[in-house]
């Protein structure tokens, strides 16, 4: 019967050189988890109303390994904008309105190469994964394995226009009072001398019930409208709620250095 013969021929075709499935099924879940964490890294948007940039006086109180939330060093410059919902955005920090042709996303290879180059010495990297504008690496040092992800959005205002995300102003992401962080998150916002908005967070990962996983993050919005968010976890896969080390492998200071580095090819 012709139909059976065609099926037999197709069966023979797939069996001729079929490689073993190997780790394929596990890779499916790794991809699903990456997609979820990438989405959350991108869309950590909170609050309502207009940005009032808070004074950044304790930018690096976020390194839990350092114990108490004491001020350290940051080159943060306070803006004079009052932190009220009626206040206009801090003009020095606000990115330009989107105009002209959109900038292209950073290619996957460039994302990975830049992330690797900007990591501090002493960390072994493995399991690279990248997409346009996104890169992930597993980091290993004496304390164990952890994860770092970076997301570069070339035109943040264009990508997330005001009112598009749950009715929120995308600029709310850059003030702790309006950003929707999970309960228990330590958040510090500041404005750097060049007008870059910086938010540093340190707290439980977003997944409800994932109490053992810590997400530490530096999220910056440059005056040219480029947003760079770098996050690090004390886990390799959040879904399991299994920490692989006591603290994420990168400190807040190290995350800030990566996020504010001027050599991101965007």
């Amino acid at each position, binding site marked *: 019967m*012709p139909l059976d013969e065609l099926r037999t021929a*197709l069966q023979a075709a797939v069996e001729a050189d079929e490689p073993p499935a190997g780790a394929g099924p596990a890779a*499916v879940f790794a991809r699903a988890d990456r*997609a979820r964490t990438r989405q959350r890294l991108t869309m950590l948007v909170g609050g309502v109303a207009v940005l009032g940039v808070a004074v950044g006086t304790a930018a690096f109180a976020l390194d839990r390994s350092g114990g108490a939330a004491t001020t350290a060093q940051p080159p943060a410059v306070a803006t004079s904008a009052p932190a009220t919902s009626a206040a206009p955005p801090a003009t020095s920090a606000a990115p330009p309105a989107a105009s002209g042709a959109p900038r292209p996303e950073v290619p996957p290879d460039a994302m990975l190469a830049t992330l690797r180059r900007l990591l501090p010495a002493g960390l072994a990297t493995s399991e690279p994964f990248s997409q346009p504008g996104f890169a992930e690496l597993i980091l290993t040092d004496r304390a164990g394995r952890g994860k770092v992800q970076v997301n570069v959005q070339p035109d943040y205002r264009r990508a997330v226009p005001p009112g598009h995300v749950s009715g929120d102003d995308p600029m709310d992401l850059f003030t702790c009072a309006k950003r929707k962080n999970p309960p228990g998150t330590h958040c510090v916002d500041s404005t750097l001398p060049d007008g870059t908005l910086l938010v540093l967070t340190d707290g439980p990962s977003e997944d409800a019930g994932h109490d053992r996983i810590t997400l530490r993050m530096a999220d910056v919005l440059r005056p040219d409208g480029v947003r760079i968010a770098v996050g690090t976890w004390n886990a390799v896969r959040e879904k399991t709620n299994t920490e692989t080390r006591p603290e994420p492998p990168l400190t807040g200071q190290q995350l800030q250095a990566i996020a504010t580095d001027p050599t991101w090819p965007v």
Partner: protein
Amino acid sequence: MTGDIESDLHEYVETRYVHLRRTAFLLCGEWHRAEDLVQTALAKVVTAARRGRVEHLDAYARQVLLRVYLDDNQRGSRRRERTWADPAGAAEPPAVAGDRATALTVLAALRALPARQRATVVLRYWEDRSVEDTAVVLGVSEGTVKSQSAKALATLRQLLAGSVGELMFSDGGMV
């Protein structure tokens, strides 16, 4: 299905991965690309299922796989498609013998088909789906499925003449 979505998803992916990868292979003709397609598709399925948006895992997975394949084809593979759309080259007998030669000939003939015709053949004769189901998965009318099948089989008959026995030469029941 156990009711525990994570267990169900792991069981589903473990048991269906190989078959779906074979489907992807017949669609795209390259194992490494098939691996990428099926992982991309199943990751989307897992994400959607965790959000409670999937009623029938297998039907949804096949639909997503087809969509991922067609999107991928449309986006970045004009060069690949040009290479495949070379019936003369595709129909050339491979320099190997026996079943393997037959397999390679069938694959080459499949590659000679345009992407949607290839998808139609794979759904109808590999996945054994009805005309109605195939139309739903591809998002086209049943008439389009029938005409795509007829065109595809005509091309396959031409390319496989003398290579695969009587395959394709009977008009009975193929469409």
